[in-house]
């Protein structure tokens, strides 16, 4: 139950925080009082517009071509697709099913877990260089406009997110593997399930922020 509460609150909080950053960065329309919820509703409706989808696709293609050239794009797609399935199936059952995951979704969750592990390891091999921690950071102007990340550059943030995601991924894979080997006691396994769940939550949150900073058009910070 604690996990469900933490998950729901942290996801809602993250959505609010990210959207609020954008809302705050947006110049107010002349003569109109800024209204967050109207803006958010308009944004959500806008997501389903053909034009938006087109723009999004274009931005994604550009991004992938920049960072994952040639055949390496398939590694990104494998990572993205497997993570989306794992997160969707995992959180749906964790939050809404008292019985936990079962049946075909569980079977797929375990199988896709293998794909996630392989693609994560390969992504790290391919992209670790771009997120190496000993690189000089950009100017602080390209930073977030809202606390608590007001003074952190986007570049540093992405690095942190990237390695945080990798660390969460490591926990996810290790706990999955740990459940499959006859080494750990019942109590340890119970703890591993908790670690698996919270790692998944961290991975989801970091991936969401990374997505926001990587793909969506950024407004100028105030």
């Amino acid at each position, binding site marked *: 139950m604690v996990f469900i509460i933490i998950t729901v609150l942290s996801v809602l909080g993250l959505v609010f925080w990210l959207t609020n950053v954008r809302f705050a960065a947006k110049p107010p329309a002349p003569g109109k009082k800024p209204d967050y919820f109207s803006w958010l509703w308009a944004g959500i409706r806008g997501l389903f517009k053909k034009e938006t989808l087109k723009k999004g696709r274009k931005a994604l293609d550009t991004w992938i071509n920049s960072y994952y050239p040639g055949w390496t794009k398939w590694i990104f797609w494998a990572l993205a697709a497997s993570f989306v399935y794992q997160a969707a199936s995992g959180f749906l059952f964790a939050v809404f099913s008292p019985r*936990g995951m*079962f*049946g*075909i979704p569980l*079977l797929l969750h*375990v*199988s896709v*877990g*293998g794909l996630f*592990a*392989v693609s*994560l*390891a390969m992504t*790290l*091999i391919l992209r*670790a260089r771009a997120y*190496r*921690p*000993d*690189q*000089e950071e950009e100017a602080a102007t390209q930073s977030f406009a809202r606390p608590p990340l007001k003074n952190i550059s986007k570049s540093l943030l992405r690095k942190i997110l990237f*390695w945080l995601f*990798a*660390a969460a*991924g*490591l926990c996810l*894979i*290790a706990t*999955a*593997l740990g*459940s*499959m*080997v*006859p*080494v*750990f*006691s*019942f109590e340890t*396994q*119970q703890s591993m*399930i908790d670690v698996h769940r919270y790692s998944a939550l961290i991975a989801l949150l970091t991936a969401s922020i990374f997505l926001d900073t990587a793909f969506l058009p950024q407004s100028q910070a105030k």
Partner: protein
Amino acid sequence: MKQRILIFALAAIVLVAATAIPSSPQKKIAWDGSRITPVHQIPLKDELNQVIVPAESYPLPFSSRYTCEPCHDYRVIRQGLHFNETTSTSTGRSGEPWVWVDEKTGTTLPLSYRNSKGIWNPKDLGLTPWDFTLLFGRHMTGGGIAEPDDKDMTPESRWNVAGKLEINCLGCHNASQVQSHSEWAKQVLRENFRWAATAASGLGEVGGMSSRLKGTWDVFDGPNPDDSEWAVAPSVLYNKNLFDSKHRLMFDIAYKPEDSRCLACHSAALAEMKKFNFDEDVHSAAGLKCVSCHRNDITHAMVRGYEGEGKDNAALPSEDFTCAGCHLGGKSTKDQAILPGRLGAPCPLHKGIPKVHFDRLSCTACHSGPMPAKEAARVRTSRANRLGIYGVAQWATGFPSILEPVYIRDKNKKLTPHRLFWPSFWAEIKGEKISPLKPEFISAAAGEILTPEKAVTRVLTALFNMPELEGTPALVMGGKIYELNVDGGLDASPYPALSKEKALFWAAKKDSQITALIPVFNPDLPEAAAEAETHIQKVLEALKNTEAAPGQPVCVYKNVLYRIVESYMDKSEFKGEPASPPQLFWLKDGKTLPFIPDFERKTIEELTGAEQTLTEAQVELVLKALEKKRQETKSNETGPFVYISGGKLFRLSDKQTLEVKNNEAAGPVAWPFAHQVRPAKQALGTNGCTDCHRAGSSFFFGRVTGSGPLKTNRVLVRSASSFMGLTRPYHFLFGLSFTVRPVLKWILFIAVVVVGMMLLLVLLIVLGKLTGLIEKRR
């Protein structure tokens, strides 16, 4: 003056009655803390609460109630689990039902006074407490239904003759090796209810049979001086050496009953297993007794030890004695801590077993009963198969055919191993409801349809009394020799010298030599013919005494018919097909009838060597007989009639042929079991996940095949997963995934190493940066 006398008389009666009232529960003795069991050197008391003097003539049997009552509250004990089947309001987990087995009519009907799915209440079948006690008293503890209140005694019962079957305290608590369960069962069968405990405990020798006495006999009538052979009234001859001069007897009492006492009624073993190969329960092997876990106080409310018992019976410390209670500890429903390791129970780590298994499987699923196999194993239990009663007669029965392990979800939604059997019984359909019929009703309606062997046994019995016969009479038929057995039935043994196709012949068996009853002879040789004809005459004379003979016995040889007319042998021309070798027939209205009619012959041949007791042809004929009876009585309330066996319902179609249907009432009756418990090394899953998770594993894909007294191929077959409520294709797929599971583990392991090393590297770099060991780059 008269009034005063009356008042005095009434006062005297009240005073005497008050002193005669049994002791009150205030006498209950609380435990003083000492761990010794008091020496039970006490006087025996009879059912009138009088001290028994063994040297007296015709002493009464001892009464557990009045002998134990001074210290132990009998009325409280009567509320215990073993005695409260009709009074308890707590249903608890379903237990093994009583099974009414009648092989002749093919009946194996589950009965219980405790409500449970698929189990019939004896009251619904019209069984009175008397009937029930007679049927099952052999394995009852006494008390409860076997000790009815006066208001519950039905007029046709014989409680006044047999006495009540009081709680047999010594049945459990007698530590003496003399205690005999077989003796108890025999006394119950003889309707010597009030004598059963005395005989079983070995305190005295009981003779006579209440079942042969008139219904008007009373225990105070004493022995019958006119009959010392047949209707002998029961009596006790106490072993006087056991008593002291004060008529006190030293009871060898076990406060905690020995396992053998529990196992008299609770044994279960695989049907095909040899005794020497039987492994006892791991707890017994570790030195625990049954009652180490299945505890009770004076209320005799037993701890059964199943998960969730605490909710069913809050008065018991049940959760302390579940598997988890002793081995894992935890918290009770009353939120009290339960420490693990009770009585030295090892605390299992269950390494590598995912949590989901503990959520959805009971401990017993992996640790109890035989390992699951392609077909569920057949098991026999004391109460259902009448085990543990030894003597001249054979008590144990093959039916019901109980199978285990079958995994079914319990009240906690956990898969729990169950025993089950497929009920078989005759019934009538009233609207939507199926009502079982008593075997005696079926026997009466079926006549000789259900006793085909009688056509043979009657002839063999008649021949048995032929003094000139050298050896014992036998019938050779279908490659087998049929002989009479001690119970008046037929025993069959192979006769390889004759092929199955050859006709039957009557024979004499001496020292395993078979000779034809009427040998071939040459009628043209006067001397030989005369000798043979004399022999035929003797055979026919013996056969004249055949019980319920359908006609006159005759012998046909070639074209001559031999018969006895007014004590003389008569020879006449036989106009039918000439016979050789000589053959016996029944002659009725000038026509010859086969000695063994076709139906009887086929039925005997079909059932010989088979465990089943009925053929489909018999079922069809019985259903027709029942239907005919219904039409004769013009009863609109009854019928149609059906027979249930092997998970199927058999009934007559519109064309009066036997048709088979599925019906819920034909479904199996199941109850959970927990023993024998296997150690961890022999638990399910000890060889890894693939013990269960593989395509075609016995756990998910084993079969449970319908079985019963009817010999038929039309039985219900169910898969193990259908009992679990699981989808077969999914578990097939899930099982298949375990073939690639090792590869997946390696993939995950490599990924963990790669990702882990890179993260370690990053961590080192960050550390280097923070400490200045690594300079920033542009």
